[in-house]
């Protein structure tokens, strides 16, 4: 019995680590344009976002909807070890995309991880394929389009209305508006994504028999999930902020305001109307849209292409890492230990790799990422995405012999 409790403890810690990477990865969604237009100083921006994330985790009284609900059949024997493996997959994929500076959906990584782990441990029957289409693939196509078109039209409109005024004169107003819409995005992010972690922890507690079925998340779960996501947000995924704020297009205050408003409105409309869209994809889409909306604005399609490739890879890659981990973790205590050690080693390796070329709040706006425009989108995507994943995934998969490499390098 103490065995199960220890395992659940590991699952909770892993879930909080995922929550941390989630905050860290998604700071860019709310704050990238705010930072790149100079509406807020980098440190101020991440601090504000962190506080709003924490507030967001507490304000919703809605039961933390378990992310697995509908995707994975809960009666089919999901064990804590499987949830643990799913989280490992999601964490590693989040860190790898962070290393590459690519904004990918943390929610999709979590879903992919849980799906992969479930398929490996229980079988394909426990997964609802049509739910995957409805909840992941269709929204992934729709999100950037909806937000992008809205941001493009809004950018056109705002430039048209203000065409007789000097850009510098109105920039202050735009920056103020941008802060308000960035605040809304942060708040919504805290509510949505912190609740996903609460859902996972609650699911683990229920599956381990600590809580009764249909129990609400206890207060300590809500508090720890909120704090983990806020800490991650405050630390800031500067690499991704740079890509979104500077890499996709050059953003002026008017565009930043249009993009940020489009993101906030789209996220709220989609979650309110029951067609959940990925925050990351909404925000990336609206940034591209605002780039297209300004006369003379340029969208760097090679960066956009790499980003979209990362979106496509998120589900299978997180799933494969998780599947390999699950095959090990269900072997028993030694399997869980091996996965935990390999995961920690991979995290350390990614962190050290990131130190070779650090990006932080001091240089986030400085450098334009050098792009080789002549390389094709797919080649660029593979160059950007495959070297770190294969190396680290081989490490993660070493013991289980899952052929992760082939899948990752063929998007």
């Amino acid at each position, binding site marked *: 019995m103490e065995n199960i409790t220890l395992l659940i403890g590991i699952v909770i810690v892993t879930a909080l680590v995922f929550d941390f990477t989630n905050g860290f990865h998604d700071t860019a969604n709310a704050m990238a344009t705010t930072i790149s237009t100079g509406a807020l100083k980098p440190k101020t921006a991440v601090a504000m976002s962190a506080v709003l994330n924490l507030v*967001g985790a507490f*304000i*919703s*009284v*809605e039961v933390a909807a378990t992310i697995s609900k509908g995707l994975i059949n809960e009666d089919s024997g999901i064990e804590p070890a499987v949830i643990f493996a799913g989280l490992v997959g999601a964490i590693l994929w989040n860190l790898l995309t962070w290393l590459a500076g690519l904004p990918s959906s943390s929610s999709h990584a979590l879903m992919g991880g849980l799906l992969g782990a479930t398929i490996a441990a229980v079988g394909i029957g426990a997964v609802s394929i*049509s739910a995957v*289409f*409805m909840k992941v693939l*269709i929204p992934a196509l*729709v999100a950037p389009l*909806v*937000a992008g*078109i*809205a*941001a493009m*039209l*809004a*950018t056109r*409109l*705002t430039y048209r*209305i*203000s065409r*007789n*005024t000097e850009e510098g*004169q*109105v920039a202050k*107003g*735009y920056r103020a*508006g941008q802060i*308000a*819409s960035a605040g*809304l995005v942060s*708040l*919504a992010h805290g*509510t949505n994504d912190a609740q996903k972690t609460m859902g996972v922890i609650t699911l683990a507690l229920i599956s381990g028999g600590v809580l009764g079925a249909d129990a609400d998340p206890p207060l300590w779960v809500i508090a720890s999930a909120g704090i983990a996501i806020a800490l991650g947000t405050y630390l800031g995924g500067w690499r991704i902020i740079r890509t979104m704020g500077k890499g996709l297009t050059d953003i002026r205050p*008017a565009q930043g*305001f*249009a993009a940020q*408003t*489009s993101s*906030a*409105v*789209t996220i*709220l*409309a*989609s*979650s*309110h*109307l*029951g*067609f959940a*869209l990925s925050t990351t994809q909404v925000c990336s889409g609206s940034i591209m849209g605002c780039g297209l909306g300004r006369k003379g604005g340029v969208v760097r399609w090679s960066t956009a292409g790499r980003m979209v490739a990362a979106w496509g890879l998120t589900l299978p890659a997180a799933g494969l890492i998780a599947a390999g981990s699950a095959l090990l973790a269900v072997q028993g205590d030694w399997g869980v230990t091996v996965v935990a050690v390999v995961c920690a080693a991979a995290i350390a390796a990614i962190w050290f790799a990131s130190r070779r070329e650090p990006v932080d709040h001091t240089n986030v706006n400085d450098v334009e990422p050098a792009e080789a425009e002549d390389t094709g989108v797919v080649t660029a995507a593979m160059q950007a995405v495959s070297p770190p994943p294969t190396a680290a995934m081989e490490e993660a998969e070493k013991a289980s012999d899952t052929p992760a490499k082939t899948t990752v390098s063929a998007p």
Partner: protein
Amino acid sequence: MDIDWAALGQVFGVSLVMTVGLVGLFTLGIVGLGTNSKARGGSFALARVGAYASYALCAAAVAYGIYIIAA
């Protein structure tokens, strides 16, 4: 596989209308307050009132957004 076209269309429509509407309103507010040095007299006062009304509508939208998040 069932695609919920109605929800999808709603999200698309609401996002588009609200984004463009809010950005437009806010820009009117900025422009209305920004041009006050050039315009004088009645049009100045009108521009001010219009600008504050636009800002008020935007603030109401933000409040509604917070309400949606919290609900």
